[in-house]
């Protein structure tokens, strides 16, 4: 018996040891590269290697340089404009469509849902040439509204699915009893159901906002003049020239771009865990 207890205890110790070892190692692997970038943002421009170095001098020169001698401020404002516009449009459209697919049974519903699923698999690349020609015809090359429209349209299929899944979790009895009480289409939607999906609205807004911040392909392809670029395309220019890499400038710019997104993300993360598990899975 004693032997058994001992081996039980030993197994438990082993489990704990390896659990913590795993968690700590993984944490290290995640934090290390991030710390390199963050610390590089505060180092002098003449560094010789892109590595973690906490001993050399700290400075804010990179940030000063970023705002005085580069177009970083322009890029940042451009990205914000596009991101906010995308967010507003996409959330409205996706909410309406998701609500419809969750609440109404109408002809063609099932087929159009499958259609949404298929169409979100078509790679953006499939439309690249057409985007270019279209932009030429509409005189929309180098404009924000065109890019915004592309982001909105591209995000619709997948997010409609997720939104529909979340609407499905709101019991239908609620709107049915409201309807019996004489509430019309709009009232049921606006006053009964919509307040209950606020967490998912927040998630949708965040994702739509993050899209333009994270996109590289379309912005690179459609924006031309240096003042009109987004943060992603602009930052890449700092390190794309192998003979003249401005890694400290890049790191400083990356730090400023990632920080607000990161904060928003953690602020809302509770919401989207529930949003994802109800909308993205069929559990």
């Amino acid at each position, binding site marked *: 018996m004693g032997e058994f207890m001992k081996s039980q205890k030993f197994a438990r110790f082993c489990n704990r040891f390896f659990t913590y070892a795993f968690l700590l190692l993984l*944490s290290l692997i995640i934090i290390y590269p991030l710390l390199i970038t963050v610390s590089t943002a505060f180092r002098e421009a003449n560094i010789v290697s892109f590595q973690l170095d906490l001993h050399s001098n700290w400075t804010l020169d990179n940030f000063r340089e970023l705002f005085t001698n580069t177009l970083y401020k322009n890029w940042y404002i451009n990205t914000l404009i596009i991101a906010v516009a995308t967010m507003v449009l996409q959330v409205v459209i996706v909410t309406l469509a998701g609500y419809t697919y969750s609440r109404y049974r109408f002809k063609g519903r099932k087929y159009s849902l499958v259609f949404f699923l298929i169409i979100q698999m078509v*790679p953006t690349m*499939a439309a690249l040439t057409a985007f270019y020609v279209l932009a030429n015809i509409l005189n929309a090359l180098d404009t924000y509204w065109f890019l915004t*429209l592309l982001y909105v349209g591209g995000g619709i299929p997948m997010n409609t699915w997720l939104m529909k899944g979340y609407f499905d979790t709101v019991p239908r009895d609620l709107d049915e009893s409201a309807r019996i009480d004489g509430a019309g289409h709009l009232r049921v939607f606006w006053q009964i159901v919509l307040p209950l999906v606020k967490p998912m609205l927040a998630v949708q807004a965040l994702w739509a906002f993050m899209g333009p911040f994270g996109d590289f392909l379309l912005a690179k392809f459609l924006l031309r003049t240096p003042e009109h670029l987004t943060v992603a395309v602009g930052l890449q220019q700092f390190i794309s020239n192998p003979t003249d890499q401005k890694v400290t400038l890049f790191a400083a710019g990356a730090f400023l771009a*990632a920080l607000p997104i990161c904060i928003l993300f953690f602020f809302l993360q509770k919401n989207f865990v529930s949003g994802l598990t109800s909308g993205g*899975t069929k559990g």
Partner: protein
Amino acid sequence: MEIDQNKLKNVRKAGLYSLIPGLGQFYNKQPFKGVIFIAIFLLFVFQMAIAGIPALTGFITLGTTPRVDHSLFLLIKGSLQIIVILLFFVFYFLNIYDARRVATIWNVKGKANTTAKAILKNAWDSGFPYLLTIPAYLAMTFVIIFPVLVTLFTAFTNYDFYHIPPFKLIDWVGLKNFLNIFSLSSYRETFTSVFSWTIIWTLCATTGQIVLGILTAIVANQDFIKGRRLFRIIFLLPWAIPAFITIMSFSNIFNDSIGAINTQVIPAINHLLFTDIPAISWKTDPFWTKVALIIIQTWLGFPYIFVMVTGVLQSIPGDLYEAARIDGANFWQKFWRITLPMILFATAPVLITQYTFNFNNFSIIYLFNNGGPGSVGSGAGSTDILISWIYKLTTGTSPQYAMAAAITLMISFIVIGVSLIAFKKTNAFGNEEMM
């Protein structure tokens, strides 16, 4: 209920009348609807006569005189016209359907809505769901369907750097591009090489992130762990930071000469384990670039799976494990028989989309090493996947638009086909209620 014999309608007749939109509606005593339908019909006829016919002719010929006719614009206008015609056909059939349906209502109920007000109210009620989805469909038509249509047509033309409008005309060439991929040895070799790396990349990177995600979720979900919250925040970081930023950072970190892996990590490992690993050519040796790419994607992608699986784990009822324990199941049996099936069942659709995502994961390939190092011919680098190769074909100094379009079509079919089969197999569409 007595039905007035005078009000009986002939369903067949109503449908036949509506072969000219609106007439059937007049026959059904719905003049308001009839006027609107006729107006739409006339508008379409007018549009066809003024712009439609020239657009279609232009689409067929793609222009006859260089510098005067712009083949590309003709192709685009033709595509738009095709969408207009398709929309009209949808309207046309709905119109006939409506005439027959209302006639049936007359016969069954003895009355139907005839005033404009009643019809509008009815349309508001039954049309409400369609109304709400119109913005979504408009945006998708403009941004996805129309461009894909253009790409589809482009694949059957000879649009490349020898044929740049308006100086040169583009022509229809049928299946030539598709045949070239397989018959021209240069293209065939590049395609085979890029395609096989794309498959390896998709399988390794996605499986990597799924395995790490599930493993982390299971390990981090144990009750005794202190600081679970903190670990959770750390594990979410790769997801919270925009991917392009981390990819570019990794591109520096894996730099052969100045990157931290070679200047800091490998020396540290050598120091700790008394090994003697030399610096690795992460950016100049194709094999190591591929390894680095897979490691980075695993790093980037696992938090998403981790979050989702954690949610599933917390929803598995405790009784299941309790029952298994009483039956004497050990840890592994519980894992293979309960935990893993539950996870896979609940997250299958998401896991499938992760594979398609990586199949088309352009930014990591492009931003890490621009598809390099080296080349495997026809403009593709040794770590280019299909999608980044297409990008190079379209944006390079000698663009091959038609060829790029043909390859795009092929991979779209592959991706959609494979995912549909996977969705069907995992029954992701679920039952009627789920849809």
